[in-house]
């Protein structure tokens, strides 16, 4: 499903060269729930961005869902992200001026999906995270856990093959964090969705199929 071959990422300025990822090799088969751990600044988010086609590696090959992503044009990359990937972020990234249902609809806006169908799929996604009754609320009317569940609904509304979660429980207390984790595990088990999750929380990481540890841009486990 996801294959990283000798992936490196180097940020260069006129005076400094910073290696964010150093020769990473990683295989994530379909249906796996992989967690990535490591101290701050070790390159976890950079790795997730590269898998999510939000960033390009300086070196190496990234193959996602059978496609070598470097060959994509900007437009094709956008389409690929839209159809194959779902994103969940630590700070939720809900648009405050849109209702919950409209936030969930967002990925479908960039596909040829009718308004009626968008609405149906979004309600279905909200139902699956237990928030259908909140669909006409605005994000600022929700708790942190609810916001993250809305973000999960948004990530799954387009039925992606891969979900990339960047510290999804990082801003939540343990109860809410567990709720969110339960939803992700359910998605992984029942929907066979491949999930790559960056986390700082050992307890959450232990619930996943496999753990990869990074340190200073290199894979140590």
């Amino acid at each position, binding site marked *: 499903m996801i294959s990283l071959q000798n992936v490196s990422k180097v940020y260069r300025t006129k005076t400094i060269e910073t290696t964010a990822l150093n020769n990473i090799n990683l295989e994530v088969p379909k249906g796996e729930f992989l967690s990535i751990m490591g101290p701050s600044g070790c390159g976890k988010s950079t790795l997730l961005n590269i898998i999510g086609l*939000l960033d390009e590696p300086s070196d190496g090959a990234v193959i996602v869902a059978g496609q070598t992503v470097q060959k994509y044009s*900007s437009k094709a990359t*956008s389409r690929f992200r839209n159809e194959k990937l779902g994103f969940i972020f630590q700070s939720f990234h809900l648009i405050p001026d849109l209702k919950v249902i*409209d936030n969930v609809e967002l*990925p479908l806006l*960039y596909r040829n999906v009718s*308004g009626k169908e968008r609405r149906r799929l979004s309600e279905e996604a909200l139902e699956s995270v237990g928030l259908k009754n909140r669909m006409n609320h605005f994000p600022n009317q929700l708790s942190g856990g609810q916001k993250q569940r809305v973000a999960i609904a948004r990530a799954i509304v387009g039925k992606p093959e891969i979900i990339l979660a960047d510290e999804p429980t990082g801003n939540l207390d343990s109860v809410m964090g567990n709720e969110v984790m339960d939803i992700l595990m359910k998605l992984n088990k029942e929907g066979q969705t491949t999930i790559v999750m960056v986390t700082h929380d050992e307890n959450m990481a232990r619930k996943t199929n496999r753990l990869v540890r990074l340190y200073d841009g290199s894979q140590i486990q």
Partner: protein
Amino acid sequence: MISHILKLIWNKKSNNSLLIIEIFLSFLVLFAVLSYVIYNTDRLSITTGFETENRWLIYLDRNNDGMDSTAIAEMKTTLKRELRAMPNIEAVSFTNGVGPYSNNTWQSSSDDMGFEIFSRYVYADEDFEETMGINVIEGRWFEEDDVNATYEPMIVNEFFMNEYFPDKSMVDSIILFDGDKRVVGVIDDYRYNGIFEEPVSTSFFLQPHTAERASIVYLKLSPNTPKTFEEEVSKTVESITKSSSFVIQDLSAMERRNSRETWIPMIALLSISGFLCINVALGLFGVLWYNINNRRSEIGLRRALGASRQSIASQFTGEVLMLTVLAVLVGIFFAVQVPLLKLIDIPPVIFYRSMLYSALIILTIVVICALYPSAQASRIQPATALHED
């Protein structure tokens, strides 16, 4: 996507209201100024119906003390003959005291025909056509013998014909207009109050140069007549009229002075509107930059969820365009009341054209101001923007 943008605009209505008010007010100001400009400039393409180059006017002293009507007639005949005989003078004519650019009019209306006819009157002699380059489009100009005609001859402008006798020729017909009059000719126009004057029905009546009220002399000069020739004309007039209380004016200079009275306020208003448009443009530009900087994480998110660069640019341009369309529609609602309720007595089509031009100008400004910030928004790197929050 349109409904999505509308939702965003609606949900941010308090933030957008100031921008809408600014665009709405700018539309109304532009509408007012453009209506005024169109109203005036529309008539620049219509002929005034007479020449002003190489034409001089002599305003005679009307105080003919000690002269009876016979003496006055003789004096004017002499004056006309002597002036005509001077080198550089190709034609001489007399009219009553209603001269060009004086804003004086002599007008009357009559309902003798069973409907009301309104017209301005101008009294001129048989040489006026040649002297002023009047364009007769049907029939003829006055002739000397017309003085003895059974029915008083009259010449009308095309506007008069279109207004009261459309689709038929009235040349040689008798009409009841302050008595029986025979229409002997139709001219294209004689808008003697300037190039910005609205077309109005105008009638000419024959007035021989010998008449007491024939007080303005019109001279047609040869091209390149020197200004110094005025002194010779002045001496001739003074010696014949025995008066120095006359004024010689260059008609083209009078025309320029007259036009300036409209051009200056028009240019001033256009300049003010231009500054207003620049202000609106700068304001929009600033608001867009501010919005985009405040919404970087949203842009990053949309890119992550599959929005292409083009979608982002279209969204931001679309948002500001929709706000503008909304403001312009409100503006049009108010502006359209002017012609509908006939608040100002000028042709409604001018207001409709002005609305169209104002809307186009505002939309163009908005598109120009939105393009660059929207393009910048589309270039935001999603990975960077998502981690700025």
